[in-house]
């Protein structure tokens, strides 16, 4: 051996100490996940889009209060109805011209309705003359409020239920799992409708109705994670040090399943947004004149043939927000669990 080392020269490192040197900083779980998430362009775009949408929804409270969006645009009833989107620029389909029912050529409704030259509705007006842009702003705000509060309730109920069921085990777990099984074999639509009927309309009752169905998935995921995590050595160590079950859950179990929980939240929000729209479509949504994305869509359904922009604009907003949540959720799942998407 000694003879051989003279023939070979170790390149790159001068001594054993340099060999042991770690050149890259050690990454924590979260830093590593963030690094992987940044590689996924769609997820990053979705993240920025959602941050923008949330900021817009909160800040728009100042510029577009609820009252403002419900107000008609003129003292005279019947003025400024069904004005098409007008950007003020000569872009086809966005220049204030629209084909009136039965006509073949597009006419400028702004001129024929005598709207002042400087007044333009960037997304048009609805069938009683309210600005669609303002209505959609308020609608987005209400829909996001409903979805996020419902998801937060799901988060608390689902995590508490799942951890308790998994941690206790035995017959308690068995009974709690049967309850989940029974509840999940009842269609969500039925549960949401029944609660909607029972609680009457209004934002709060919609939130509760949606929250009642959303926690099942979360509880199931959290329970499965708890079953795995409670066998880990650090949990055993905490237990033998006399830590209470509640503290173990808060300090050891939940932080270690945060990835799963976050991904599940990303899936719950779009489904809550969708159920809000479903409730509006079956007359159990927000009470008029309050707007939500769902109520805007279902109210404009009758106008689809002649004034499609009134329904397509809120629909597009709803789809874009759901899409962003789903893309970000996909990205986060891959970032938290790189093995799942290795190839």
């Amino acid at each position: 051996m000694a003879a051989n080392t003279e023939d070979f020269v170790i390149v790159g490192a001068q001594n054993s100490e340099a060999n042991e040197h770690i050149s890259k900083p050690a990454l924590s779980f979260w830093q590593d996940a963030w690094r992987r998430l940044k590689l996924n362009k769609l997820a990053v775009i979705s993240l920025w889009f959602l941050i923008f949408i949330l900021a817009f929804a909160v800040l728009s409270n100042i510029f577009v209060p609820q009252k403002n969006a419900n107000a008609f645009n003129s003292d005279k009833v019947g003025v400024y109805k069904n004005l098409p989107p007008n950007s003020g620029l000569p872009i086809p389909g966005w220049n204030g011209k629209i084909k009136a029912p039965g006509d073949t050529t597009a006419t400028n409704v702004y001129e024929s309705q005598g709207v002042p030259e400087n007044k333009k509705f960037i997304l048009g007006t609805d069938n009683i003359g309210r600005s669609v842009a303002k209505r959609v702003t308020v609608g987005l705000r209400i829909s996001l409020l409903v979805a996020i509060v419902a998801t937060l309730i799901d988060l608390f109920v689902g995590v508490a239920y799942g951890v308790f069921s998994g941690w206790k085990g035995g017959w308690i777990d068995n009974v709690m799992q049967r309850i989940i099984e029974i509840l999940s074999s009842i269609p969500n639509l039925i549960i949401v409708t029944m609660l909607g009927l029972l609680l009457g309309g209004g934002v709060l009752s919609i939130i509760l109705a949606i929250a009642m169905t959303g926690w099942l998935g979360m509880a199931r995921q959290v329970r499965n994670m708890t079953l795995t995590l409670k066998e880990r050595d650090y949990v055993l160590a905490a237990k033998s040090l006399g830590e209470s079950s509640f503290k173990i859950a808060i300090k050891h179990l939940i932080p270690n399943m945060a990835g799963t929980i976050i991904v599940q939240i990303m899936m719950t929000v779009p489904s809550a947004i969708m159920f809000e729209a479903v409730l509006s479509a079956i007359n159990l949504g927000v009470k008029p004149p309050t707007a939500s994305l769902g109520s805007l869509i279902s109210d404009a359904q009758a106008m689809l043939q002649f004034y499609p922009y009134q329904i397509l604009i809120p629909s597009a907003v709803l789809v874009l927000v759901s899409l962003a949540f789903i893309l970000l959720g996909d990205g986060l799942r891959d970032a938290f669990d790189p093995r799942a998407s290795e190839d």
Partner: protein
Amino acid sequence: MWKYILKRLLLLIFTLFLVVTATFFLMQIMPGTPFTNPKLTPEAIAQLKSTYGLDLPLWQQYLNYLIGAAHGDFGISFQYQNQPVSMLIGQRLPISAQLGAQALVVGVIAGLFMGAASARNKNNKIDGTLGIISTLGISIPSFILGIILVYLFGFKWPLFPVSGWGDSFSQTILPTLALAMSPAAITTRFVRSEMIESLSSDYVQLAKAKGLSAKEVVNQHAYRNSMIPVLTLIGPMAAGLLTGSTLIEQIFSIPGIGQQFVLSIPSKDFPVIMGTTIVYSAMLMVMILITDILTAIIDPRVRLQ
């Protein structure tokens, strides 16, 4: 196996009993009654109540309802006088079932092809495009897709009729497409990941090593094994179809049970709401049961758990 099926059947009956009980008592505490017409005199209301058996003590009403429901009798509609709820549902159920079945078949078949194509062209343009389509399919609720389809193919380029049912097959095309999108997207994503997994599994490596062509490997070994697990998706997909079809029936004016359900909510037609609720729940439970039994037949490991 039989023991497993029997156990599941008993659980199903118990769950249905719970649903019937819960709906019955929920309806008791619902605000409002259908008899709110100011023209009704107190005598007339008493008359109506005795016709519908609402003057009996609560436990007797419940018992009557339970016995009736077990025989498929859900009482008489408030809205359409003298029409038994079971008859109303019976007329409409085949329509909804046909729509749902069409959407499921179209969606799953499309999903199988797209998922396989996606997995075989992993990480290239075809895979990317199909990935975008399937993600869109998951994020667009079926009723919004229905509205877009009505606008595009009903009004802008009038190719298909946009309302009604039963006069011609072309009436079913747009609602079926709107409903099929989400099963197609779910299946695509699922088949893609299943197939990528089986393409890297040992038996596929062996088949390749044996000298089979790429086509033979995929068709004989990988594809077949990735298709079977799709059966397990049918239960969850049926749940989505139930919700979707309610609104789709409303948009396309299809006289199915979903439309009936929506119409009976504002008129507080409690017998119809209860009947539909029970039928909906029973349908979903049977679909989940079939899915689970099929899964247990295919994958014996499930039975042991």
